[in-house]
Structures are given as C-alpha cells and as structure tokens.
C-alpha cells in the first residue's frame, strides 16, 4: 500500500446539509415576501433591500479581510441578515438607513461578538431596533409612493377598522416584507418542507399571541380583529423567519415551546398595552436574551433517564 489513506474518528460519512445550503434555502424562502414587497411598494423597495444585502455582505467581507480572518461570506448568512433587515424597513426609508442598519447588524451585533453562531441577538432585528430608536421618525413613517398614512395596526390601535382581505393578501402599508401573510406563509412552508424549521416556535408563538389577544384585546373572540392582529405588524415574518433563527433561539425542544410562548405573551403586551402598535421585534430580541436561561432550565433528560420517548 503506497497510497496515503485518510484516517479520522468515526463517523466517516456526513449528511448533505451544509450551512450554505441551509442559508440559501432561507434566502429562497424569503423571495415570495420580498417579491410581494416590490410589487406592493414599487422599485424603491427593491433598491432598499439590495442596499441592505450589499451592505451586510460587504461589511462582513471587509471586517474579515481587515482582521485577517477566513472570509465566510459564501455561507450566505450575511445575505439572510441583509434580506431580513431590508424586509423590516419602510419602503420609503432613505438609502443611508439601509447602510447604517446593515453595518450595525453585521459589525456590531454579529462580528464583534465572534461572527457566525456567536451573536446573542438576531442581527437584523438588533439593527432594526437600533434604527427605530435612533431614527424614530424615519422608521415609523410609512408614507411612500404606493401608500400614505398609518399602518393597519396603528389604525386598529386608534380604534379604527381595516380591510381584512387586504391584510391577508398584503395590499396594505407597512415594512417591505411584512405585509403579505400569504407570501410569508408560502416561504415558511418551503422551510418546513425542507426540514429547516419546524412549527414548535412559530406555532406556540402564534397560538399564544392569538389567545392573548382574545383574552386581553378587549374585543373577545372577534375574528376580524384577531386576523388583523395576526396578519399585521410583522408577526408572521417574525414568527417564521426571525424567532426561528437558529443562533438565537433555544436548541432544546422544550425550551423552544417556552420561547414561543414567551414571545407570544410579550408581543401581546407590547401591542395591546404599549405605546406603539407593534412589538414583534422587541419581543424577539428580549426572547433572544433569555435563551441561555431557557436552555439551562430545559436541558433534556437522557435516554434511559426518562427522556427516551421525547
């Protein structure tokens, strides 16, 4: 035997899934929401999202080059962050908002904490919250070519009424990617079928929130109010695409239910009792902070110690 043989510890085979393939699938799953956003808000939305994606990828690239680290932009995680950030901005936001948000998301929230897998907060949401606090008037101004005036949730909060059909299809005002429940759920189905996410977090999140609205919303079980609450204000985008972010959600099964329930309650509190009509972003980043604690208290029981059937 002259040939050199490879030696390594078992197992000697690997599954086909890779970080890159997972991130790429998430990008594809976000395309319906993105596409609808462009259809709904026009070319301005397209430009905003592209700016965000480009900024995120470039920030990661430049940081890694400057720090002489391995360049990891090909894993598509920065693209996912950029897309999510873009979909969370109002279509009418000025171009530099996307750049500031993108740099903050990648540089501050992700890279400074050690890069992929090390951030304790979803980068896109961290950046969104940073922008909302720093540029409140821009981030809450949804006037654009297609629409003007308040978002449906703000209308509801002030006691007005909205067209439910439009809310479900997405022909309403809001951030670029949050408006169409149908487009978001379509992408979510792709993620579920590809085995990338499951319903533990989105399911417990949405159900808890719906119950919370029924109990504390002051309108009892009002289907119109409930479906407006469910389809508005980024709940669907948040539940399926951001609460399920691998890095910042609990890894234990039981923990994922607790996390989802916590997000549902917090979103309900923020929306119904807070000054703002929306609360998904804050609920999720607050949830992100609790992840280590949740994981600690939900560590599973091993096989033969009571955990074999779960």
């Amino acid at each position, binding site marked *: *035997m002259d040939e050199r*043989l*490879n030696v390594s510890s*078992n197992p000697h085979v690997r599954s086909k899934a890779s970080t890159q393939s997972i991130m790429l699938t998430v990008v594809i799953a976000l395309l319906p929401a993105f596409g609808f956003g462009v259809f709904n808000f026009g070319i301005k939305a397209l430009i905003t999202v592209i700016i965000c994606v480009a900024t995120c990828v470039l920030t990661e690239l430049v940081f890694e080059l400057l720090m002489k680290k391995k360049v990891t932009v090909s894993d598509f995680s920065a693209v996912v962050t950029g897309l999510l950030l873009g979909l969370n901005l109002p279509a009418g936001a000025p171009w530099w908002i996307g750049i500031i948000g993108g740099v903050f998301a990648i540089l501050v929230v992700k890279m400074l904490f050690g890069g992929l897998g090390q951030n304790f907060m979803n980068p896109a949401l961290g950046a969104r919250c940073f922008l909302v606090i720093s540029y409140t008037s821009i981030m809450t101004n949804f006037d654009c070519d297609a629409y003007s005036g308040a978002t449906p949730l703000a209308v509801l909060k002030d006691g007005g009424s909205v067209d439910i059909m439009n809310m479900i299809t997405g022909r309403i005002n809001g951030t670029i990617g949050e408006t169409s429940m149908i487009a978001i759920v379509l992408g979510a189905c792709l993620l579920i079928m590809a085995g990338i996410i499951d319903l533990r977090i989105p399911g417990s999140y949405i159900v808890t929130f719906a119950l919370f609205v029924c109990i504390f919303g002051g309108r009892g079980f009002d289907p119109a109010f409930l479906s407006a609450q469910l389809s508005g204000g980024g709940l669907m985008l948040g539940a399926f695409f951001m609460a399920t972010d691998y890095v910042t959600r609990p*890894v234990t*099964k039981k923990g994922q239910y607790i996390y989802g329930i916590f997000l549902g309650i917090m979103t309900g509190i923020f929306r119904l009792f807070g000054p703002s009509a929306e609360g998904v972003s804050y609920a999720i980043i607050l949830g992100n902070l609790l992840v280590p604690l949740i994981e600690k208290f939900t560590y599973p029981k091993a*096989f033969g110690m009571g955990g074999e059937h779960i």
Partner: protein
Amino acid sequence: MARLTFVGGVHPHDGKELSKAKRIKDYVPTGDMVYPLSQHIGAPAESIVSKGDRVLVGQLIAKAGGFVSAPVYSAVSGTVKAIEPRRVVTGEEKMSIVIENDGLFEEIEYPQIPDYDSLSREDKIKIIADAGIIGMGGAGFPTAVKLQPKEPDKIDYIIINCAECEPYLTSDYRKMLEEPEKLIGGLKVSLSLFDNARGILAVEDNKPDCIELLKKLTKDEDKITVKALKTKYPQGSERHLIYATTGRAINSKMLPADAGCIVNNVDTVIAIYNAVIEGRPLLYRIVTVTGDAISDPCNFRVRIGTNYAELVDAAGGFKKTPEKIISGGPMMGFAMFDLNVPITKASSALLCLTKDEVSKNEPTPCINCGRCVEACPGRVVPKLLAELADRHDEENFVKLNGLECCECGCCSYACPAKRPLTQSIKSMRKVALSHKKK
C-alpha cells in the same frame, strides 16, 4: 410497550446493494495469521504456545485470562512464528500470536459432542466460554459472561440483534438468509438457559426477505417472535434495540439484564450453535468486503486471524484508488492507515471508499441548528457537550449527561457545519470514564 423504533437517529446512504446479493464465499488464507490476545472486552487471553510450536486448526493457543475474558483458537495449521506486539485495526499494538500458515489446514480431533439433552445449564455456559465466543457485533464482550446474569430468573427476553443498521454491512443479512436454522438453533440453546425467557429476532424492515423467512421457520416456536423494526441508524445499538422491542429503557450505567434482557448479535448466536450443537470453537466469522473502491464486493467466511490485505485481493482488488479504508461500518468503524492488520472476532467489514467525506468538509462554526439534538438517540445535546469537551470542562460534561452518549456518530453525521462532535465527545468521555473508575 414496544414501539419498534426509538426517538432520534439518522438515515445515511445505505450502500448495502453492493454486496447484498452476494452469497457467502469461503476464503482460504495463504499468508501468516495473527491472533491478538485481546480481541474482547476484559482481561487479555494468556498464550499457551511458544515460538516454534506446531498448531492445528481448532487448537487452543491462548486460554482465558480471567472470568471476563475469552480463549483464542488457531484457524489454520502451521508453526508459531512469533509472539510479539502487532498492530490491530484501532491503530494500537497488541500482544499477538503469529502463526505461519502451512496451507494444509490439518484439524485437531474434536472431542465427542456430548448429548445435547444431557447438558446442564452450567455445561452449556462452559462450552460457550471455552469456545471463545464474544459479542461479534463489534463490542466484543464475552458471551458466556453475558449469559450469567445475577438473577437468571428475571431474564424475560433474549433479543437477537438482526438489525444490521450500519450502512454497507451485509454479513448478518447473508447469514440470516443462508443459515437461518443455525440462528434459530443458537437462539433455542440460549433460551434453554433461562426458564422465563422468550426469544425475539429483531430485524430492520429493509430486510423483508429475512423477516419472511424467519417468520416461516419460527411459526411453530411459541417462545420465539420475529419483530420488524423501522429502518433507522442506530437501531442495532443495544439500548435502543431493547427499547424498540420491549419498551424498556436503560441508561449507560445499567446492563441489559437490569431490564430483563440479553442481546446477542447474529454471528454470536450462530457461534453458540456451532459450539454447543456441533462442538466447534470460534474459528470463522463473516466479513463484508465492500465500498466503491472494491472491484467485486463480497461476503466472505473468513478464518479469524486472516490479514485484511488478503481479503482485498480476494475481492478482486481495488478498481479505483481508495481514499479511506474502514474496518466495520461507516458510522462506527475504525479508519485504517494500513491494511496489514488481522481480522479479529469482532471485525465485521472492510469498507473501501474512494472519497473521504470527512476530510472533504472543513468544520465551520456551529450555527446552533439543533440537528444534532434531533438526531441524538441518547437524547442529550451534542453541540453543547462537544463545546464543553473542547474546553475540557469535565464537571459540566458529566452533569449534562455526557456519559450517556453511545458514540453512534449521528450528531457528526447530521451536522451541517461538519463539526466532529462525536470525536470531541468521545475523547472527553474516555477521560471522564477513566477518572470515574479511580
């Protein structure tokens, strides 16, 4: 309640089609034979031959070195060439008896087989112990010790592990098809040792022909049932097999006997039959030689002690250059850097792959996706245990059930970041277990 499966596990590419249809062929060794004194768990055997001695097929060359030990027999006739450390599949060097094979295969005169019905429980166990039988699925625990639990009356099930869940391996499959009578006979011998035991032949449902055949042959045996298990790796793991067939779950600190079970592998049961009914010690085992680098994948009946390199030639040599050669299956086998090692009682396969999927994939940062948690049949959190292991945090590793890992490899297999989770956990387990023993 039996669920016929377990939670977790993975579905790797099965690869069994390469050698599945190949009948078992006898391989006649030509080169030197090497017999490590320690082919089993427990005390090494003690050599009773010396350099220059002539030995025959079936002759005892090393006696058991204690209660938990197993004797070793020569499977060829020839001269003892040396007693020296030789490399084994795991890469270590172990004291071994080297026999120069004279190619004559002269056999000893086996003692008269005692009448089966006159044998007592103790006699049967002694025959099994003296035949050198160990768990031939890979673990290598002496079978006679397994058959002597503290409370024999509390054994409810003898489970025959016919799962063969490791990809590529077809040796158990072929044996079930070609020697089912011996398998059932061996099980009956085992059952005769326990008053309250029932036999279960646990087969994965990717082998419907075996299930049908075994069901047909056992239809009049009211103490034996054939159970079709869902095909999933690692269904053949002892603890998961017990759970799938009986619904009883034991942790790593317990023995199958604590759940009223004894689990034996197909080859082991056939060896029990050969020893008790035919009076033959353990001389052969079935080895699958396969992989995409092998010209003619085969299932061989191999004399224990044969050099692996001979088997490659017997299977037509390499048709493509192998990048990785594994003794055993791809999930739990040992990667070999040298083919010049002997087949032992616990060697089940030689797998030659043209592509090494491990070196091809550079590990990247963990993205916390949870696939390892879903896949882990031990129901622990591999990514966390691997992190603790890499930091040498033994205390928390043990606290978070690190010792419950069965090293099946599902976590590393499932990891999209291609992190060597199993490897990290295995190393830490070794350290933690050695500290525990002190």
